[in-house]
């Protein structure tokens, strides 16, 4: 023991500049007991893991080890720890929809998301081509847009019905959609027909000497065959027109005089006008 005391002190002096006590001890292959000479307050070596949490993780992931499922809590110490943090109020603002909102056009009624099968099946037939032939472009265009919006409405209701798993109503909806599809086809048919008619008319007009397609002046200058005749006879044009009218009436009356013989007898008793 007597020899150990000076050795201890000398080792202590040797190790004083180098503060890594344990490292020096291991270098000198001395028993660890020697390191106990370091006063506990002076040692910078620490085995506590208090700061371990702040050590950057190997992949720099700030949230490594955090889990809401395992309730690991916040990783580092936070300024708000120990204080009651404010929680958001359970408040949901009540929204009122504008009764004139444009999106209401996607629905049949404002209080219902989708129509019942009964309501869905209340519809007429589609427009047919013969009816549409008499309509103007504005009418046809308006009808097309009515169809487009109706199809959107049906698609919205169908999606909602499938979502709600309503079994009945698919057929009614399909039938309704089919009628609209037929109307749209008829509109296209009518317009195509009209286009073909216009094409033919143009072809005719190009050959017609009375029609001027150059776009300057009067496009149509009728050449009445009577005019040439009148000029030859030296008569007034008005008188000629009158004459022509009389002739026309005569022809008509003549036609009427022939017809009754071929008419059935019931025609005479019929008083109400035909509609």
């Amino acid at each position, binding site marked *: 023991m007597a020899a150990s005391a000076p050795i201890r002190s000398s080792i202590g002096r040797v190790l004083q500049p180098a503060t890594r006590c344990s490292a020096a001890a291991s270098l000198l292959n001395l028993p660890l007991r020697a390191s106990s000479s370091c006063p506990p307050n002076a040692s910078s070596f620490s085995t506590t893991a208090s700061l371990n949490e702040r050590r950057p993780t190997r992949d720099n992931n700030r949230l490594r080890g955090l889990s809401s499922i395992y309730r690991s809590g916040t990783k580092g110490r936070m300024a708000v720890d120990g204080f009651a943090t404010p929680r958001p109020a359970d408040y949901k603002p009540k929204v*009122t929809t*504008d009764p004139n909102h444009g999106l209401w056009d996607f629905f049949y009624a404002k209080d219902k998301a989708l129509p019942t099968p*009964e309501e869905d099946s209340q519809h007429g037939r589609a427009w047919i081509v013969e009816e549409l032939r008499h309509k103007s472009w504005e009418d046809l265009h308006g009808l097309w847009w009515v169809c487009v919006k109706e199809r959107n409405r049906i698609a919205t209701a169908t999606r909602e019905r499938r979502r709600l798993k309503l079994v009945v109503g698919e057929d009614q909806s399909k039938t309704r959609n089919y009628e609209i599809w037929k109307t749209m086809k008829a509109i296209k048919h009518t317009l195509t027909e009209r286009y073909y008619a216009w094409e033919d008319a143009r072809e005719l007009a190009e050959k017609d000497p009375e029609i001027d397609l150059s776009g300057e002046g009067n496009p149509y200058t009728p050449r009445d065959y009577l005019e040439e005749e009148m000029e030859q006879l030296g008569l007034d044009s008005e008188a000629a027109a009158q004459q022509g009218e009389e002739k026309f009436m005569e022809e008509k009356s003549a036609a009427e005089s022939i017809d009754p013989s071929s008419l059935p007898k019931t025609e005479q008793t019929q008083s109400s006008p035909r509609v």
Partner: protein
Amino acid sequence: MAAAAASKPFKTGLKQVYLPDHVITFCRPTRQSQLPQFATFKVPLHFNKLDMRDYLLHAYSVASLGVRSAVMRQPVARNPVTRRVQRPPAIKYMTVELQKPFVWPKEPTKEERKQWHDDMTEKRAELQEKQDKQMETYQKYGKLVNPAVEKRTEDRTKLAKQAKDLVSGAAKWDNRRELDPKWTES
């Protein structure tokens, strides 16, 4: 329409489409968090955001502040007709930020659902769905019941009940043996 055109909040496109034939579906918001200021539509794949914005303004006089679009890929499925495995075409959804909020009308209550079908039909549909699910499970696992949700055996149920009673104090534990009086609790 004229009023909306007068107060056009943005510059619209110049191309005039006279006879559009695409179908646009208004979708009920599935997420609870979707605000009434947003509206989701299912649109054709060729639709773009500007198309959507102009379409809503011209056809429905609905002014929008912004459009977000998403193309949802569909899962691979077997064609019911040809039995071939194929992927159905993707679906495009567009979420429009509205100038005026819009809340969807309420869905039919259980009482109102009877306007579509009676209870019998509903039960039949439920049963059918259950059987379909069972069939799917069988094809996947070779069992009629998914092992993950397999029903507990009777033993396990009894054991769980006993444990619950013991914890709540309804039953007292006893091993039917006389204990030394110095070990008994006061």
